[in-house]
C-alpha cells in the first residue's frame, strides 16, 4: 500500500499490537485524538483504552511508568509530543532505562520504545524543532534510531518494538507527510544497527539520517561528482564500519545533520572516520550542520537550517581540498 510516514508508523504499531498482547501505547492524547500528528489514529478503537493509554501531562511520569511496565512483562511504546519536552524524561532514561540490564546483570530489562517527532521544518513554536539526538546517543544502554522514509519507518519501528533494549525512536517531523511510498501491509523488519547505502558513488561519501536524506538526494542530484549517500539509521550503537569502508573507497566524507555543530553527532562520526580511514582520507571530514545557536522562531529559521546549497558547498570544499 502507498503510505506516508505517519501511516507507516501507525501500521507498525497496529501490527505489533495485533501480534503481541504485551505491546501497549501510552502518551498524551494518543487515544481518541490519535496523537497530535495522528500517528496513533484508530488504535484506541481497535485495542481499547487499557492498551492505548491517554496519560496525564507528565513526561517523566510517562517514561517512568513505561519502565515499570517493562519490568513487569509489557512492551510499552511511549510517545513524547515533541523532542523539546523529552528532556523531562532524561532522568528516567539515563538513570533507569539505560542501566537496568547492567544493574541487574540481565535479570530486569527494559524493552521499551520512546517515540517522538524531532527536527525542524514545520514552522512550529519554540521547542518544536529540536535535534538533540546526541543527548541520547552518548548514553550507553540506549539505542537511537531515525528513519528516513515511510518504508524504513515501518521496518525500523517494528524492530525497535521487538528489541530487548530501550530504543529512542526519532521521527523527522518534516518527513511525516512529505512523500508516500509502497510499504508492505504485513510484517516488515529492518534490523537495527545497520546503516543503509542509499546511493553508491566513488568521489565522496555523504552521511546523514532522517529528513537530511531526501535533502542530500536533492542537493547532489545534478552534481558532476559521483556521490555515495549513507543513511545511518541507527545513531547509536553506530554502524561506523559501513561508513568507514565507504570513506576508505571515496577518500572524502561529508556529514550532514540538523543539530548544532559542536558536540553534535557529526563529531563522533568524523572521529570514527579519521580513526578508521585516516590513511585513505584526501581531505578533512566536512560537517554540514546547524550553527551553535538556539533554533530561531520561524521568521529567522532560514539562517539556521541546513539547505541544499550548504550541502553542495560542503561537498565542494572536500573535493577541492
Amino acid at each position, binding site marked *: 500500500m502507498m503510505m506516508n510516514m505517519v501511516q507507516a508508523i501507525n501500521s507498525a504499531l497496529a501490527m505489533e499490537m495485533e501480534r503481541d498482547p504485551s505491546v501497549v501505547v501510552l502518551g*498524551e*492524547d494518543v*487515544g*481518541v*485524538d*490519535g496523537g*497530535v500528528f495522528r500517528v496513533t489514529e484508530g488504535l484506541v478503537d481497535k485495542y481499547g483504552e487499557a492498551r492505548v493509554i*491517554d496519560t*496525564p*501531562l*507528565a*513526561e*517523566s*511520569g510517562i517514561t517512568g511508568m513505561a519502565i515499570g511496565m517493562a519490568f513487569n512483562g509489557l512492551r510499552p511504546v511511549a510517545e513524547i509530543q515533541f523532542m*523539546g*519536552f523529552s528532556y*523531562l524524561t532524561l532522568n528516567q532514561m539515563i538513570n533507569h532505562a539505560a542501566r537496568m540490564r547492567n544493574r541487574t546483570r540481565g535479570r530486569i530489562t527494559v524493552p521499551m520504545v520512546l517515540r517522538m517527532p524531532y527536527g525542524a521544518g514545520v*514552522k*512550529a*513554536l*519554540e*521547542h*518544536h524543532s529540536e535535534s538533540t539526538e546526541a543527548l541520547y546517543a552518548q548514553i550507553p544502554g540506549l539505542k537511537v534510531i531515525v528513519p528516513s522514509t515511510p518504508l524504513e519507518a515501518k521496518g525500523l519501528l517494528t524492530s525497535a518494538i521487538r528489541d530487548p533494549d530501550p530504543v529512542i525512536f526519532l521521527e523527522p517531523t518534516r518527513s511525516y507527510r512529505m512523500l508516500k511510498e509502497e510499504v508492505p501491509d504485513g510484517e516488515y523488519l529492518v534490523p537495527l544497527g545497520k546503516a543503509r547505502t542509499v546511493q553508491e558513488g566513488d568521489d565522496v561519501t555523504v552521511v546523514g539520517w532522517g529528513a537530511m536524506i531526501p535533502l542530500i538526494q536533492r542537493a547532489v542530484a545534478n552534481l558532476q561528482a559521483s556521490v555515495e549517500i549513507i543513511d545511518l539509521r541507527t545513531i547509536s550503537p553506530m554502524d561506523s564500519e559501513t561508513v568507514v569502508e565507504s570513506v576508505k573507497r571515496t577518500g572524502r566524507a561529508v556529514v550532514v545533520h540538523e543539530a548544532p*555543530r*559542536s558536540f553534535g553527532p557529526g563529531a563522533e562520526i568524523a572521529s570514527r572516520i579519521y580513526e578508521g580511514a585516516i590513511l585513505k582520507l584526501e581531505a578533512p571530514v566536512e560537517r*554540514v550542520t546547524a*550553527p*551553535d*545557536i*538556539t533554533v*530561531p*522562531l*520561524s*521568521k*529567522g*529559521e532560514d*539562517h*539556521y537550517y541546513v539547505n541544499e*546549497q*550548504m550541502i553542495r*558547498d*560542503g561537498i565542494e570544499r572536500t573535493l577541492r581540498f
Partner: protein
Amino acid sequence: MLTDEFDPMKGEMLRVMDEEGNVDPSLMPKLSDDVLLKAYRNMLLTRMADDKAVKLQRQGRLGAYPPSKGQEASQLGPAMALKEGDWLVWAFREMGALLWKGAPLQTLYLYWMGNELGNVYPDGARITPAVVPVGSQIPHAVGIAYASKLRGEKDVTLAYFGDGATSEGEFHEGLNFAGVFHTPNVFVCQNNQFAISTRREKQSASASLAQKAIAYGFPGILVDGNDVLAMYAAAKEAVDRARKGKGPTLIESFTYRMSDHTTSDDWRKYRSKEEVAEWERKDPLKRFKAYLIAQSILEDDELLVKEMTEIVEKAAAEAEAVPAPSRSDVFAHTYAEMPPYLKGQLGGGGK
C-alpha cells in the same frame, strides 16, 4: 476570607455574578465604573484580537496559535488585582492578561508570527515571555517572588498555567517551594477542562484542582472562571495576602476553552457540539455585558466593537511590518559575548 468561606473539599465555588449577570452584593468587590468598563474593553479586545489571530493563521500570515476564546474573564480578573511593580508569569494562552498589564497587541502578534522581538515588552512591564513547556514557568515565579521578598520589596508574582500543567512535576516542585519559603505568589490554574484532547477528569483523580493546595500548606479556592468579578475578588484577596507576607494562594478558575487547543487542532475529534454550545451560553463576555447594561455602565458595545476592530487591524499591520530578524540577530544573543567560533559560523554561511 473567601478562602475560608469557600472550601474546595466541600465542592464550594466562588461566584459573584450568575449566568444572567445578576450580582450577589455581599460578594461584590469594590471596583469603580471606570475600571469595570475598562475591564469589558479588555475582554472585548481580547476576543476580537483572538479572532483576528486565528484568521491570520488561516491566511498563513501567523503561525500556530492557541485561542483564548471563553477564558477572557479567567485571565483578566487576576491581572486586574496586580499593581505596576508586580510580576506576571504566563504560559501561552493569556493574551488578555498581558494586554491589561501593558503588553502592546502588536508585540503579542509579533511573537505568534515567529519573531523573538515579540517577547520584548515595554521596560518595567514585568512580564516574562511565553513559556511553551507546560508548567515549567511555575518554579520561575517562585524564584522571582523569592528575590522580591529577599530585598524586602512588596511586589507580588502572579503565575498562570492550565489544568494540564498540574500533572507536571514542576507544578508540584514549584508550589511546594512556595509553601516552604512562604513566597509572595499567586497561582492561577485556568482549568479550561482540556489539555489538548485530554479531559480534566483524566488529568487527575483529585475532585478539584484547588484542593491540591492542601498538599503545600497554603489556601486554595475554586472560582467560577467565567465570572470576571469572582476572579478579581479571589485574586485581590490572594494578592493582598501575598503582599502582606502571608504566603501563596492557589486559585482554580473553572472555565472552558471554547475554541481549538491551537489552530493545528480540531476539537470535533474529542468533544460534542452540544457540550460546546452549553458553554457558549456561559460566555464570560455576554454575562459581564448583561451586568454592565443592567447597571447602566454600558449602553451598547457597537461603538466599542468598531474601536477595537481598528486597534486590532492596526496592531496586525504593525506586526506584519516588522522586518524578519537578520542573520546577526539570530546569532547575537546566544551569549553576552560571541565566542570566536560562533563569529566564524556567523560569517561563514555554510560552515
